[in-house]
């Protein structure tokens, strides 16, 4: 993978996006170094999910530019497929393939996209299932697992492709409260290993614990970005303070 001199992993410059006449993102600037851990928060409808979905091209944008590992994003299938090989994504609803077993979910892209031999792909998949601590579920179907387990499989499925960046789109929002912790712990493990992470979440405790920088968005703009110590103790903007008051209780 091309290492740019400053080891920038994701670079968003002056990015704007409209749904019809409605501007959902305005002049987003964000630069993420390799190994950095970013938490994005903000009220619903602030455009935070849309922003990270732009990073792997699930959403097209109209203005500005996004560079991922030195490759400039464009809505061309060759570029998108190349970028997506380096970017893992975990969704709110897990989005596992229900007709495939846990192991097959993990090996699918390895064998089809990366042309890894089957035995090798299964070895890799089992290694990552072990990493998310559910190796014993490999033969089951997603429908047989709890939400927390499914989300950990989804994380393992992305990790199998050994991405350089992981995107998390509200990974714990549709989980029962007792399962949130197991998923957050898995993500914290990843952070420990030096994975570049961009995570949209409302889990402020998690942000405090692992983030290098917290980003607050509202109405399609980045309002504030700061290390968690400053962000939580001494936010600069009134809007940030209001938001924090609401989510911290």
């Amino acid at each position, binding site marked *: 993978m091309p290492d740019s001199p400053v080891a920038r992993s994701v670079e968003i410059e002056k990015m704007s996006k409209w749904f019809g006449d409605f501007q959902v993102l305005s002049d987003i600037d964000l630069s993420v170094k390799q190994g950095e851990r970013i938490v994005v928060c903000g009220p619903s409808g602030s455009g935070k999910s849309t922003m990270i979905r732009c990073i*792997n091209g*699930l959403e097209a944008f109209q203005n500005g530019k996004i560079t991922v590992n030195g490759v400039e994003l464009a809505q061309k*299938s060759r570029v*998108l*497929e190349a970028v*997506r*090989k380096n*970017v*893992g*994504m975990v*969704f709110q*609803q897990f*989005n*596992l*393939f*229900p*007709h*495939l*077993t846990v192991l*097959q979910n993990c090996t*699918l*892209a390895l064998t*089809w*996209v990366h042309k890894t031999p089957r035995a090798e792909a299964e070895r890799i998949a089992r290694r990552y299932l072990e990493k998310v601590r559910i190796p014993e579920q490999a033969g089951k*179907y997603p*429908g047989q697992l709890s939400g927390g387990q499914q989300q950990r499989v989804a994380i393992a*499925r*992305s990790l199998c*492709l050994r991405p350089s960046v992981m995107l998390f789109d509200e990974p714990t929002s549709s989980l029962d409260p007792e399962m949130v912790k197991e998923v957050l712990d898995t993500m914290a493990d990843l952070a420990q290993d030096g994975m570049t992470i961009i995570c949209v979440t409302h889990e402020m405790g998690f942000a405090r614990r692992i983030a290098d920088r917290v980003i607050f968005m509202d109405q399609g703009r980045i309002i504030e970005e700061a290390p968690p110590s400053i962000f939580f103790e001494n936010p600069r903007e009134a809007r940030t303070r209001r938001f924090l008051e609401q989510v911290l209780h």
Partner: protein
Amino acid sequence: MELMIAYTREILGGLSTTLSLFLVSLVIGFILAAAMAFIQIRFPGHISKSVWNLMFCIRGVPMLLVLYIIYYGLPLLPIVRETFLWAVFSSPFWCTIICLAIVEMAFTSEIMRGAYFQTPKEQIEAARSLGLNGFQTFRAAIFPAMIRNGFAAYTTEVILLCKSTALAFTVTVMDVMGFANEIRSRTLDIYEPLLIAGFIYLCITITTRLALSWIFSLISVAGSARAEAL
């Protein structure tokens, strides 16, 4: 009792015709339906709209009329009567097959189209974000979702097709219903031949339902055979 056995034997003479009507038109209809659904999905706009309208029209017409216009109408066209097509359209058997396949196409293409557009967006995004290309996304996410969404409706449609084959006797095809009807008009016994034929159709539709649910179990969620195919 002896009469019943004699009738049964006579009516069973039409079984192979009924089964061939059913299975041949099922296969042709499925292929045509897949083509029509593909056109409607791949070419949105005018092409898609006009194909949909054509399918809607066919669905609105009684099968009997489709059968009559193919069997009685088409042979009047010189292009049918004076070319190789005559070999096909002079046979009531093949006219029925064409009619059944056309009607099957109209209904099944709509099931396929509906199932395609019911695929959850999230499944497609998951496949895309793993780097799968268009065809791989179809195979991994869309096709399985289509099976999940459309199989029940397709089963109903297959049963309808099977039952529709019974109209073949109106253009002189001697299938199960054809023999039953022949006995009815020859002997004026109404109930015996019709009940025997009904029992035979019941056996066919029950077998068909079992076969389809077996196929579904092979290719859907719980099936490990599907896993090997990947």
